[in-house]
């Protein structure tokens, strides 16, 4: 009863009950971890968690758009690596200037986004097939381009000025960029035509088409935006971790999608929350930091993330079932 009252509260409604709960979970996790682990509650841990949150966050934001249209993209991880590899290889082996390399990274992401989007929107190939294919293609292309070599981006001191997008000294500049992009995404999704149509067509494509809307264009745009964000994610990945290898990247698909779904974006399409995605990603990043600090291997993080996502989605399913 009280719960219901809280839910009906206009402020809570505005912020979204789920998001408030999620934020609570995030804070609780942080407090518990700080109690359990010596000097957990310091800037260095936060910085390390942020490193993980940035690239994962951009991936998650990107895939939020795709899932909003009722699609799915699990090529984002390998495509991110492909972006970083092609641009990085251009930088290190072809002498392309840094600025241009960063643009190349984003362009590669956009090209993959457009490729996926075209096949899904215009050719009606089911999204999961498209992502399976482009996952392979991204790995293959990156590998061919780099001659199956890993690429290491330069350190900040040695011309890697792009790292100042991630942090300057001990200041996490990346968080500002990340929030700025997230806010832009949120506005795009909730207050512009593009967002309105993406969400609507995710809910009922035919109805939107018969309203005289060029659904193909908007659907494809969602994938392109996703590609763009994946290109940015690539920059943040190498900004934090320096090196990428061809043939990998799948491990990040799951976590990115998990972050997005945990935040309340519905796999059925039509419902998406950028704020939720952001919190979801932070939860995953904090979890990963916490698990390591507690002395466990990454495996436990995967298992816990899996279980959390199942719970989050189940809660969502139950809520919707109660509503209907």
């Amino acid at each position, binding site marked *: 009863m009280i719960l219901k009252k809280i839910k009906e509260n206009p402020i809570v409604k505005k912020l979204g009950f789920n998001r408030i709960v999620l934020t609570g979970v995030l804070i609780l996790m942080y407090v518990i971890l700080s109690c359990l682990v010596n000097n957990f509650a310091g800037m260095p841990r936060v910085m390390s968690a942020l490193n993980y949150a940035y690239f994962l966050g951009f991936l998650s934001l990107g895939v939020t758009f795709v899932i909003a249209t009722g699609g799915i993209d699990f090529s984002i991880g390998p495509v991110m690596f492909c972006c970083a590899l092609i641009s990085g290889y251009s930088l290190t082996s072809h002498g392309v200037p840094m600025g241009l390399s960063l643009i190349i990274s984003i362009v590669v992401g956009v090209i993959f986004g457009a490729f996926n989007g075209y096949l899904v929107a215009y050719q009606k190939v089911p999204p999961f097939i498209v992502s399976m294919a482009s996952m392979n293609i991204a790995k293959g292309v990156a590998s061919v381009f780099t001659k199956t070599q890993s690429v290491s981006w330069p350190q900040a001191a040695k011309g890697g000025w792009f790292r100042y997008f991630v942090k300057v000294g001990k200041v996490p500049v990346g968080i500002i960029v990340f929030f700025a992009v997230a806010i832009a995404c949120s506005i795009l999704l909730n207050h512009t035509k593009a967002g309105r149509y993406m969400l609507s067509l995710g809910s009922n494509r035919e109805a939107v088409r018969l309203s005289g809307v060029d659904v193909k264009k908007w659907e494809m745009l969602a994938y392109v935006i996703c590609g763009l964000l994946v290109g940015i994610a690539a920059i943040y990945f190498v900004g934090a971790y320096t090196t990428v290898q061809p043939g990998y990247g799948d*491990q990040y698909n799951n976590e990115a999608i998990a972050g997005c779904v945990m935040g309340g974006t519905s796999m059925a399409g039509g419902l998406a929350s950028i704020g939720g995605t952001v919190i979801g990603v932070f939860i995953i990043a904090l979890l990963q930091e916490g698990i390591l600090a507690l*002395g466990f291997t990454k495996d436990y993080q995967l298992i816990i993330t899996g279980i959390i996502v199942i719970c989050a989605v189940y809660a969502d399913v139950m809520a919707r079932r109660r509503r209907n």
Partner: protein
Amino acid sequence: GAQQAQTPDAEAPAADTQATEAAAPESAAPEGKELNFKIVVKSFQSSYWQAAVTGVNQAAEELGVNVECNGPNAESDIADQVNMLTNYVNGAPDGIGLAACDQSACLDALQMAKDAGIPVVCFDSGCPDAPEGSVLSTIATDNYGAGATAAENMYAALKDTIANASAPVRIGEVNQESTSESITQRGLGFVDKFAELATADGKKVAVVGNEFYVNGAKDKGDEATADVIIEVAVPAQTTVELCATEASAIMNKSDVLGIFGSNQVAAEGILSANENLNKLGSEPGKTILGVGFDAGSVIKGAVKDGTMFGAVTQSPLAMGRATVKTLYQIATGETVSDISTEGYWYDSTNMDSPDILPNLYD
């Protein structure tokens, strides 16, 4: 490297508590408080790392220190390893042993370690670009040399066959991946040494296959006129079955005399491929001579029964022990330096000799 960076750097912006804790071992450790070392390995996938961990634990017990080992799921999970390393640095241990998956990815974390006054010892693979003073010692096998050892032994067995060959012959090499420094060095070491030996005997050598190795070889030669062709294959991902696919494509060629798998997974891939092809053996010219790297029960078994001609093993156990010892020495104020370990050739004849046996882990 020399002993340094032990005194807390007053300018280091690290938190005060960390600085004090990092400083603690120097004065207190030997007498009172137990030392805490953290070890980051590349992964636990192959028994090579298991052996290293065993060595670490042995040394820890002997010295009475605490160690904690962790490593990513796979050697390719670079980001995971960086996170682990950063995490350990944040935990302010008395020292960190690191087998870096990637040379440059760890640099930021190493800088952090340096700032926090935590000594780092690299083992298995070095970090040549590490910030001055962060890595105090590197304990690693000379991988280029180990690859060369494999080539020398294989060439010695094939010398006559190659000399008498009327048509071009082929030597294969399977590298699990072409991204890890240690594996590429091994691969190149093998290619260069083999080419060198064959050229010395008046043969023309060409390197084909994966472009990185072709371009990285000292002399890539010309395939059309070569007498000896060295073909290098790299599977798209680190799985046994992909290594096996590449291996069978090479071993199916009729002119193949020998094949080298440059780490445990690649060598096991070659053996998997041989299940069907049945071409490996220890008779030069008649069968394909398979040469592996590292140990493990599968490779050991194959070497023992002659399916695999021989292999080069490193001593991960000794490396693990040395890592902890070195960390201990640093903590107790001793001066340390780099330690280079060797690759040992073993085949069915010397497997049980006392030099080799301790290095053949399961």
